[in-house]
């Protein structure tokens, strides 16, 4: 079993709907704590998973004086960028080009490693990008090669003429090397045909379209054009069922409504509404009709002949950009040999807002390359951090074996843990702890917090401490009783150890025995982990803020204001030995 490192998770109040946005000043009565004690937090409750976070993941709203977790904050995207070339993508490009990098950044479709452009003529390890004189020769072609699994785009029959703007080149090539029309080219070709005019030209074009395997984009473009022309000319296919047809799929009004849903236009086009009458469906390839190829025998024989490893996994298919280069809608990639290079998905930098007061609580610099933050209100700089250390007391018969963190806990044998609370703020903190005497769950362990109330000194300047180092050494650190093992005992109500801005206390735990009734029950996953819920209430005196005058009762600004914050946390101490 994997060893368990002790952890501290803090519950975000957002899961408790009553406390959301509740101001936690000194004015709030202690009755709030009274009702919290009644329903002690259960870390094993199914909902608890969603509200427990390590301290690093939590933010803090200075206006609400409350912890905020990744689940309750609202995010705003500041910058889009490609994670490979680290170029920023303006949001206008995003609408036209999609959320993938349109430079030459591609991932291997097999192993997701990065692909690099390599010339085929030159020795394989020589990237011809750096050989300008040779790149000019017309016969040099380039391919994308994965340096992790040695996949090459030549395997799917794709080669490039130029080493740059791979994305644009790839959009024009179908697997196997056949050319693929881009939307613009398709439009131009259509225009050309219509210019030539006449039925003969149309017939010729439809024949050509049917012959050359209409792909998904062409089919969609044809269908769209066809239906648009139908909408413009409602009487073309009027067959007398106009009143009935209005409800069906084939009426222009319902069609225009559906089209509007997808294109985001106005829901009700008054012009379309007045026009009634059914439309006919596409009947030629030029209008977007594509007969489904139900003969899959070639595919089945290919599956028979191929290995399981030759077929694409669902994650590989999911990472493929949708509808890119697929010939048919039914021909979705089934084999590794039909997967295409995946352009990198863009990544974002996001700023975060408090859900209640809408103040920004985290805001990164917009530039991609900088790692600074304009605003970064993290919970770690407002609430004390709790670290857990196992204490090994020498037993009556000689010194105890050195306990290592992650060791299994002996059932029914008292163990002591040192909890160190570190104060991050510049005021002294008053901490009150509460823990249920028995942990919730099927195997209740006994928990005793030996010192539930204590003060932590302010987080003063580091240099002050350095100057006072000698004093501290005599007064503060002298409480470290490690040297004198004869007096080595845990006292109730006493602080174990104290430093500049931290205090250590002892928690005594008697782990439950994991005896199961034979044959009836099994141990559920992680049920042997000893987790103790703990209610932490911190009080401190802050400078009277001008904005918080509403909560104050007309006190002077200079006067210190009492602040309070209370939350549940869960201490994961270790696994209990079984059997």
């Amino acid at each position: 079993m994997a060893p368990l490192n002790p952890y501290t998770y803090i519950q975000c109040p957002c899961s408790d709907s009553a406390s959301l946005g509740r101001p936690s000043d000194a004015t709030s009565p202690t009755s709030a704590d009274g009702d919290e004690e009644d329903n002690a937090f259960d870390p094993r409750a199914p909902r608890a998973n969603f509200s427990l976070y390590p301290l690093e993941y939590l933010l803090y709203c200075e206006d609400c004086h409350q912890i905020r977790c990744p689940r309750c904050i609202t995010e705003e995207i500041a910058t889009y960028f490609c994670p490979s070339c680290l170029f920023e993508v303006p949001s206008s490009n995003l609408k036209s080009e999609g959320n993938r990098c349109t430079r030459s950044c591609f991932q291997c479709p097999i192993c997701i490693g990065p692909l690099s452009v390599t010339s085929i003529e030159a020795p394989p390890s020589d990237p011809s990008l750096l050989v300008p004189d040779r790149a000019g020769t017309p016969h040099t072609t380039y391919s994308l090669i994965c340096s992790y699994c040695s996949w090459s785009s030549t395997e799917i029959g794709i080669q490039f003429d130029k080493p740059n703007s791979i994305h644009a080149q790839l959009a024009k090539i179908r697997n196997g090397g056949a050319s693929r029309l881009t939307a613009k080219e398709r439009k131009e070709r259509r225009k050309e045909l219509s210019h030539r005019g006449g039925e003969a030209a149309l017939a010729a074009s439809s024949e050509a379209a049917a012959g050359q395997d209409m792909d998904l984009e062409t089919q969609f473009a044809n269908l769209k054009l066809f239906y648009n022309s139908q909408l413009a000319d409602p009487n073309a296919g009027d067959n007398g069922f106009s009143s009935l047809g209005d409800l069906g799929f084939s009426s222009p009004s319902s069609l225009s409504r559906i089209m509007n849903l997808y294109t985001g236009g106005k829901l009700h086009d008054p012009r379309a509404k007045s026009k009634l009458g059914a439309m006919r469906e596409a009947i030629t390839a030029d209008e977007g009709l594509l007969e489904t190829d139900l003969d899959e025998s070639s595919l089945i024989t290919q599956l028979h002949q191929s290995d399981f490893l030759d077929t694409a996994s669902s994650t590989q298919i999911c990472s493929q950009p949708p509808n890119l280069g697929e010939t048919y809608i039914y021909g979705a990639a089934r084999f590794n040999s039909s997967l295409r290079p995946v352009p990198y998905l863009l990544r974002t930098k996001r700023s975060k807002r408090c859900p209640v007061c809408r103040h920004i609580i985290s805001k990164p610099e917009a530039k991609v390359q900088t790692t600074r933050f304009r605003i970064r209100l993290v919970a770690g700089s407002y609430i004390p951090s709790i670290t857990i250390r196992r204490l090994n007391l020498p037993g009556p018969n000689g010194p105890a074996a050195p306990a290592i963190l992650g060791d299994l806990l002996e059932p029914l044998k008292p163990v002591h843990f040192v909890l160190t609370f570190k104060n991050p703020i510049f005021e002294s903190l008053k901490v009150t702890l509460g823990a249920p005497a028995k942990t919730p769950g099927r195997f209740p362990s006994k928990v005793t917090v030996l010192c539930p109330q204590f003060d932590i000194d302010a987080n003063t300047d580091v240099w002050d401490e350095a100057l006072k180092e000698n004093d501290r050494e005599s007064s503060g650190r002298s409480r470290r009783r490690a040297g004198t093992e004869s007096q080595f005992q845990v006292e109730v109500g006493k602080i174990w150890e104290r430093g500049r801005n931290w205090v250590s206390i002892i928690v005594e735990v008697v782990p439950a025995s994991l005896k199961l009734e034979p044959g009836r029950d099994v141990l559920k996953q992680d049920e042997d982990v000893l987790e103790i819920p703990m209610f932490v209430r911190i009080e401190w005196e802050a400078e009277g803020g001008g904005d918080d005058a509403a909560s104050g009762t007309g006190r002077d600004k200079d006067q210190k204001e009492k602040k309070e914050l209370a939350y549940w946390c869960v201490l994961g101490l270790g696994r209990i030995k079984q059997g």
Partner: protein
Amino acid sequence: MSRRPPRGEYIETDTGNKVARKATLVGTQNIMLGGKTVIQPEVMIRGDLVRSIQSSSSSSSSGTPNNTAVAIGRYCFLSRASCLRPPGRFYKGAFTYMPLRMGDHVFVGPSSVIQAASIGSHVHIGARVVVGEFAIIKDYVRVLDETVIPPNMVIPSFSIVAGQPARVIGEVPEGGHEAFELRDLYKTVGNNPQPPAS
């Protein structure tokens, strides 16, 4: 002579570097340490793999060639049996090595092999990690144990990566930036180490 201190496990330099006597540093004249860097025993740094072809810009501007093979910033920590090796490739038809640059507060876990082109600041690389040639790791990146980063991969800031091959599996939270600081870790090793702050 009696006042000479006993030989410790580490050599501590004027700039605060702590280099284990049992570390293997090849081509030390090509290795730049920014200071306060810890190099644990059995670490190997291949400073001998120096660039054999000078880039046209640097050779024309300055007469003395820049021979740095490995450049390391401040407060870096190279754990036991890790290896730093400059990456190499063909350049203008000949094979050459390129310098490996490392920012500040970079932790390299035990038995990891680094062949990156550049590693930013505040980067944590776990144990038994392989960083492929010419990989670029930006600032505030956490690489979990046993990751294999393919050659030429770029890892943007605030990423958590894992897997073979590496993929981005998460983001470093806002509150996790301070965990990359290695000042306290620096104090815990050396010839007279301090106990870790509780």
